């Protein structure tokens, strides 16, 4: 039933960029499905094991941008072995074989090898953008291949990857003809950098807008780079430590003043507090500031800086800023939307820590706050209720008490009521992480009120299966559920097995589900992969259905059990 020729429909579909919408379009009729699939350019695959590269290419042969995610989120916290999976090489190989005209590849928590990077660099002529987040398995040799062979490279963005630095000259591998760079981020590299090569690269990249340097780049190199690239919008400083009386430092002061386009600052992987005033001139136009990798900056210097950043929308800092410092943030940064406060001292009691006071102050001063990650010494229900009232716009709310089961510090009660207030007030909440002493009641609230919730992280919480059931029954939009060290067992797991096909994945570790329960689930739901991670090869354990499962990860998939699982991962 097409009133228009295909080309017209395709042109109309071009205006629809959201993949959710495009998915809906493709369900209307066969011809729309056909037209849409040939015109889809961006594909997002939240779990690389949910589909195979061959099927992806068969359906979307015109794909130009691919996003893939591998390991489950808890892999970030050492709960998943390194070689569990998430290998990207088969994807690259398949795309290369099918001559897909790939331009952009974005990977998160995947295992990337130098061979894979080299294959990318040789197979995709128009390759423009490589973004690797929390990946591992590659070295600077792979980066050298990308630099050398991708003639139209615009973006090389390495965020928090574990890279084996061979201290080679990978930066030298960018040919003189490469002038297309817009974004370069190598902050996570540990080895030495050829400063001269870096300066030359920046000099011939007139479109460079974003540059994030590693720790090895000293302040004098930074100064020379900024002279060449005053148009930078986003800067990650490597080392920011120098004799303040030197000529270099003075040059830096004048150079920074000329960087009128600067909106985002990060890095400071090595910083001397007395050098910070150098950035004061650009503070007033900053919208994003990340000082979370810079420990040892005294609160007084931090607040001097932050007072000037009146347009700040995103702030990432360490908890050594203290409650008082957060008070300064609250009074200075009225436009703040995202705040992350990381622990500077994860294992100690910490004199430097924030409490509920800091959060309450922020909620009073920053009504636009919609995204929070807050590691704190303590929390109270009363504070959370105030926060809920002041900031009803939360989309992401992640609270982490350093002691995972700490009760309300003033009443000694569980934090159920406080989190309950948050979910009730924040009707648009999509992501929630809980901590502190929590009973089944908090899950009752979540099931009742968190209608838009898509991702929920639970640790050391709840009393019984009821807790998990509240969530599974109530949260209609839940996609990712990750649970550790909580007393949820087979009853909760098996009550509504169909639910898991509406979700991306479920992680349960150190809970009460047994092998028998997992086997039952796997048998009932063939389109789920139910994986058990068992790091000791206990063949006998395989037969004891009553035994509790240490780590279970299940996810929906169209392609059955994966073939690349290591021998300690059993797909039931």
């Amino acid at each position: 039933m097409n009133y228009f020729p295909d080309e017209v429909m395709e042109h109309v579909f071009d205006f629809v960029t959201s993949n959710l919408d495009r998915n809906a379009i493709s369900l209307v009729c066969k011809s729309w499905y056909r037209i849409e699939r040939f015109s889809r350019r961006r594909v997002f695959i939240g779990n690389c094991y949910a589909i195979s590269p061959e099927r992806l290419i068969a359906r979307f042969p015109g794909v130009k941008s691919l996003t893939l995610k591998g390991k489950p989120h808890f892999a970030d916290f050492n709960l998943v072995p390194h070689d569990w999976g998430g290998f990207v090489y088969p994807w690259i190989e398949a795309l290369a074989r099918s001559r897909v005209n790939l331009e952009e590849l974005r990977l998160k928590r995947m295992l990337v090898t130098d061979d894979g990077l080299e294959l990318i660099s040789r197979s995709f002529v128009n390759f423009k953008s490589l973004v690797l987040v929390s990946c591992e398995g590659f070295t600077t040799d792979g980066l050298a291949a990308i630099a050398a062979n991708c003639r139209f490279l615009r973006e090389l963005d390495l965020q928090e990857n574990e890279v084996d630095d061979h201290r080679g000259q990978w930066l030298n591998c960018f040919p003189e003809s490469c002038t297309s760079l817009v974004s370069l981020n190598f902050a996570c590299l540990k080895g030495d950098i050829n400063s001269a090569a870096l300066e030359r690269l920046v000099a011939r990249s007139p479109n460079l807008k974003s540059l994030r340097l590693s720790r090895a780049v000293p302040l004098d190199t930074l100064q020379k780079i900024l002279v060449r690239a005053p148009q930078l919008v986003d800067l990650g400083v490597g080392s920011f430590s120098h004799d303040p009386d030197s000529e270099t430092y003075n040059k830096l002061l004048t150079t920074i003043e000329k960087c009128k386009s600067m909106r985002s600052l990060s890095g400071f992987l090595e910083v001397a507090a007395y050098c910070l005033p150098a950035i004061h001139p650009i503070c007033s136009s900053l919208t994003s500031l990340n000082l979370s990798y810079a420990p040892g900056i005294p609160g007084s210097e931090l607040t001097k800086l932050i007072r000037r950043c009146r347009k700040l929308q995103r702030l990432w800092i360490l908890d050594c800023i203290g409650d008082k410092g957060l008070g300064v943030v609250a009074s200075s940064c009225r436009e703040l939307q995202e705040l992350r406060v990381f622990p500077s001292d994860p294992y100690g009691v910490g004199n430097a820590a924030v409490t509920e006071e800091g959060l309450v102050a922020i909620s009073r001063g920053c009504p636009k706050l919609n995204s929070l990650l807050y590691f704190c010494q303590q929390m109270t229900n009363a504070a959370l209720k105030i926060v809920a009232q002041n900031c009803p716009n939360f989309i992401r709310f992640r609270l982490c008490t350093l002691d995972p089961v700490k009760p309300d510090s003033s009443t000694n009660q569980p934090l159920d009521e406080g989190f309950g207030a948050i979910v009730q007030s924040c009707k648009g909440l999509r992501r929630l992480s809980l901590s502190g002493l929590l009973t089944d009641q908090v899950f009752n609230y979540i099931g009742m009120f968190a209608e838009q919730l898509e991702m929920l992280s639970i640790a050391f919480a709840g009393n019984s299966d009821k807790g998990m059931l509240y969530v599974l029954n109530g949260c209609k939009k839940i996609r990712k559920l990750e649970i550790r060290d909580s007393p949820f067992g087979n009853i909760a797991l098996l009550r509504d097995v169909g639910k898991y096909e509406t979700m991306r994945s479920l992680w349960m570790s150190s809970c009460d589900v047994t092998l028998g329960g997992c086997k039952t689930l796997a048998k009932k739901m063939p389109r789920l992969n139910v994986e058990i991670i068992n790091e000791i090869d206990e063949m006998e354990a395989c037969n004891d259905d009553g035994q509790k499962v240490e780590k279970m990860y299940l996810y929906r998939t169209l392609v059955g059990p994966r073939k690349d699982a290591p021998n300690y991962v059993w797909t039931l």
Partner: protein
Amino acid sequence: MLSSTEAADGSSGSDVTCMDTELTLGLPRDGGSKVAIAGAKRAYAGTVGLGLRSSIGKRSGDIEVDAAESCAASQVSGAGKVPGSKAQVVGWPPVRSFRKKTLEICKYVKVAVDGAPYLRKVDLQTYNSYDELLRALEGNYLEDSKVMDSAKGMEYVPTYEDNDGDWMLVGDVPWKMFAESCKRIRLMKGSDAAWFAPRTPKCRG
């Protein structure tokens, strides 16, 4: 491969035997909240320390209460060593390992000794007290005979540059505070050193 729990603040003493048991449960000292105890097996009330090891092969459901009580007791008695008796739980607080490692690197500081031809670097993270650090510094420089010669008979005064760029005498503040704020170390001798009263630095914590 799992990362094993690390003893809090390097205390090894009474906690070592506790860490040997796969799972211990510290019972609340003052009765705590009934709700909390009745519920989660692995939850614990209050701030009594809990040695949790995400163990290889062992069933985490086996709670050894007797061992737990003695563990709780010894942790209480060892409380002086373990400030706040915080539990060491795998993956808690949930901070990306990349971030943890990056913040750790900052603890390498340069050490300059007056008269020595080159500087050294020490990782402050590997020490837990002034004693340990000073002994290590002694060890480093005593090895070098050149330094020894010029140092014959001279006493060195350890000083350090802190966050604010000020030069301070080593030993005044608690170890942790020192480790966090120390940017570089200089072992001074001669007339400069005379300004600092030549005394043994207090060793705290």
